[in-house]
């Protein structure tokens, strides 16, 4: 195994402080859920099972790839000029890494984020050089292979000035029996005039507990476009935050979730307009079957003085049967007046007439429902900039429906 050398002191100090914070902090909770049901210590960060790396990742049209298995980074490779990939051990010596590490997602944000830092030992640093244009996606896999695995991958992306970067990650389990705790942190920095297209699909099995944080910091005239497909996990918790840090910053956040059986998706999203003349958009679409439960907490915050901010948030959920439950808090905190901020949230059912129409055309009831739900998702899926991700997500939702 590579990376047996000891970590530098500054890094160990961050880990130690995080451990202390973890020990004294309460589990995150709100009115709808208390995450004190997650006991991370029950999982094993050393658990590891050798798996074959799927061929497709090395064969697909990519700009590079990396693979985590359980809690280890096992493969990484850049196939493009201007795209530099480092495993954590090497990254620690990189000045750009050091400057940005733990600055977007601070270790003391909450108990389980602190746990991530305390347990962190494998990660990936992606540096996109100035002016580099990485059009083909960089492909990252998180493979959950061991029972009771405790996984804490850290990904830090820095896109330097005027660069362009496309990223696609997929997290899955090798079978439906193994349990695990998936606890990733992704930090994304879009420096001035850069553009980052970030897509992620999470479909680990329905025994996995997941708690992740992803935060993007967006510079002058830069863009971060985040797309999430949430299908997996028993309790799947994620926080996405986009911080508009300079004029002209643009944040896009599109999320799709699908829940069945007794799955819970607890999704938090924040558009933080620290500086004015910036734009933010959130679009969330979800469908729930059986006894699935979704909690959506979305906030637009315009800081004092961030004039001419423009922000929009919409969340739509479909409940497919009695027993499913949806809770939503689409909030606004506005401290500037020359702004345009709008949010909307709806919860509804599939329209009977539409199902009836499809049935009259010879489509069976269940198939008609599926078609309507796929149509409902399409608006959000279309926004995903990577074609592979769009196709993969559609296939996975259809698979999961059956």
């Amino acid at each position, binding site marked *: 195994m590579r990376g047996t050398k000891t970590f530098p002191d500054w890094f160990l100090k961050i880990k130690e402080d995080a451990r202390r914070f973890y020990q004294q902090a309460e589990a995150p909770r709100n*009115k*709808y859920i208390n995450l004190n049901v997650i006991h991370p210590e029950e999982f094993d960060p050393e658990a590891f099972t050798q798996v074959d790396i799927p061929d497709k990742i090395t064969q697909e049209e990519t700009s590079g790839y990396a693979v985590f298995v359980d809690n280890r980074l096992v493969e990484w490779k850049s196939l493009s000029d201007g795209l530099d990939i480092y495993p954590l051990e090497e990254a620690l010596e990189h000045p750009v890494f050091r400057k940005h590490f733990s600055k977007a997602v601070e270790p003391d944000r909450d108990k389980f984020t602190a746990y991530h830092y305390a347990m962190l030992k494998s990660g990936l640093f992606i540096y996109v050089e100035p002016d580099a244009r990485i059009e083909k996606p960089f492909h990252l896999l998180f493979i959950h292979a061991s029972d009771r695995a405790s996984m804490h991958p850290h990904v830090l992306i820095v896109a330097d000035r005027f660069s362009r970067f496309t990223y696609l990650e997929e997290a899955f389990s090798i079978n439906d029996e193994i349990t695990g705790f998936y606890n990733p942190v992704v930090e994304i920095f879009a420096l001035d005039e850069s553009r980052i297209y970030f897509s992620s699909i999470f479909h680990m099995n329905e025994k996995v507990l997941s708690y992740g944080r992803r935060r993007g910091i967006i510079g002058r005239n830069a863009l971060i476009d985040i797309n999430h497909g949430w299908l997996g996990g028993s309790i799947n918790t994620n926080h996405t935050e986009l911080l508009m840090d300079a004029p002209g910053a643009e944040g896009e956040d599109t999320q799709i979730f699908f829940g069945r059986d007794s799955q819970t998706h607890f999704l938090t999203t924040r558009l933080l307009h620290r500086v004015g003349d910036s734009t933010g958009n959130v679009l969330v679409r979800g469908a729930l079957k059986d006894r699935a439960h979704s909690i959506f907490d979305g906030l637009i915050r315009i800081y*004092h*003085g961030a*004039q001419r901010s423009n922000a929009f948030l919409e969340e739509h*959920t479909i*409940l*497919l*049967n*009695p*027993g*499913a*439950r*949806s*809770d*939503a*808090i*689409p*909030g*606004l*905190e*506005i*401290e*500037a*007046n*020359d*702004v*345009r*901020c*709008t*949010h*909307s*949230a*709806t*919860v*509804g*059912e599939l329209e009977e007439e539409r199902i009836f129409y499809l049935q009259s055309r010879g489509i069976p009831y269940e198939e008609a429902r599926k078609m309507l739900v796929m149509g409902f998702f399409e608006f959000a899926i279309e926004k995903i900039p990577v074609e592979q991700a769009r196709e993969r997500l559609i296939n996975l939702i259809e698979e999961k429906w059956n």
Partner: protein
Amino acid sequence: MAEKKDQEALLDFDYSKYGFRDEDAVYDFVSEPGLDEEKIKLISRLKGEPEWMTEIRLKAYKIFLEKPMPTWGVKLDDIDFDSIVYYARPTRKVADSWDEVPEYIRRTYEKLGIPEAERKYLGGVEAQYDSEVVYSRMRKELEEQGILFMSMDEALKRYPDLVRKYFGTVVPPSDNKFAALNTAVWSGGTFVYVPKGVKVNIPLQAYFRINLQNLGQFERTLIIAEEDSFVHYIEGCTAPIYDTHTLHAAVVEVIVKKGAHVRYTTIQNWSRNVLNLVTKRAIVEERGFMEWISGELGSGRNMKYPSSILKGKGARTDILSMSFANTGMHHDTGGKVIIMAPDCRATITSKSISKGGGISTYRGLVKVLPDAEKARISVSCDALIMDEDSVSNTYPYIEIEADRVNIAHEAKVGKIGEDQVFYLMSRGLTEQEATTLIVMGFIEPLSKELPMEYAIELNRLIELEMEGSVG
């Protein structure tokens, strides 16, 4: 012609006079500041209450002591419960003619224009001065229809069984700390009972006035609308300006029976030293309809979330609120709808304006329980921010546990369109006039729901609040 004159008279009314105080007020009884069981027993004894009510008060007091302060909403941690005067009785008698009301109190209400309004367009008026109702009268024809309209204290004496049956059933003392406090020390408030099938076509009004410094006003209102009845109840509130805080913690309980319709309108214009922490809730039975309409213009710190529990099939509710948070004010208001039965409908419309550093927050809850099939709910919140120092927050909670439901929520925050102001100025309006006119248009959904006289009053108050907004 006469009507036009009345309008002009209302428009000419000098609203800065709301802030006056009665220096020569004489009280029949004022309790020492602070609260304990003995004081509660004393209030109950002075009122000559039945023992069961004293028991309810004492039980609620225990709950009040146990309940923590809310940690959200407006700043509450500086409330000094020991410095509050919990009971001040200006007179022992509830008059049914203004001539019998003590001179200094009558003067107050005349300044506020109440007796005049009563003559013109109200079906009944009740006036509460500090802790007690001093005047209560209803038109004879309404009385003959079996409508009851009186102070809660009087209702407790005359109709103890009715009061006992419903008191605390909509807002139990355990609901929150201030509901518990109200139950322990309540005094005054209105009791309205509308018999089956009776429709009260002219509004009944209560007018609440706080005069004494450091007084806490804890009125308790109970409205019972029997099957297929209708009533419109209006309340108005004012107080003089003091430099210490005055606590207003009311509880309002409304029971809307099968097919009944209750409209509850509030024009709240407390002075800024008043902390307004009220719990208002209605239980709505089958096909019943509850309307909450409020204009929140005053009070430095305001927490108010009128609620409707739709309990019967096909029940409906509309919650319409307008809040204006000017300099030094923090309004945390909204609405709550809990749907328990099928085929219910609810609409929440909130309009807020923040100006001069004011903070206005919408906080709402829509909860649909598993059996509440085919609920249709729409929530919309619009906020105007007049300048860069003011703040607007929106926290709508949506909890859906039923599948055949349609709920839509939307919120918009922004400023007044410069092109609109420019257009109006090009037609000869000053910037101030143009801005005020646009604000009036913004709150029109509320003002058009008010009786004409109140709409004029509301517009006049908005004009006053808008003064100096352009500089």
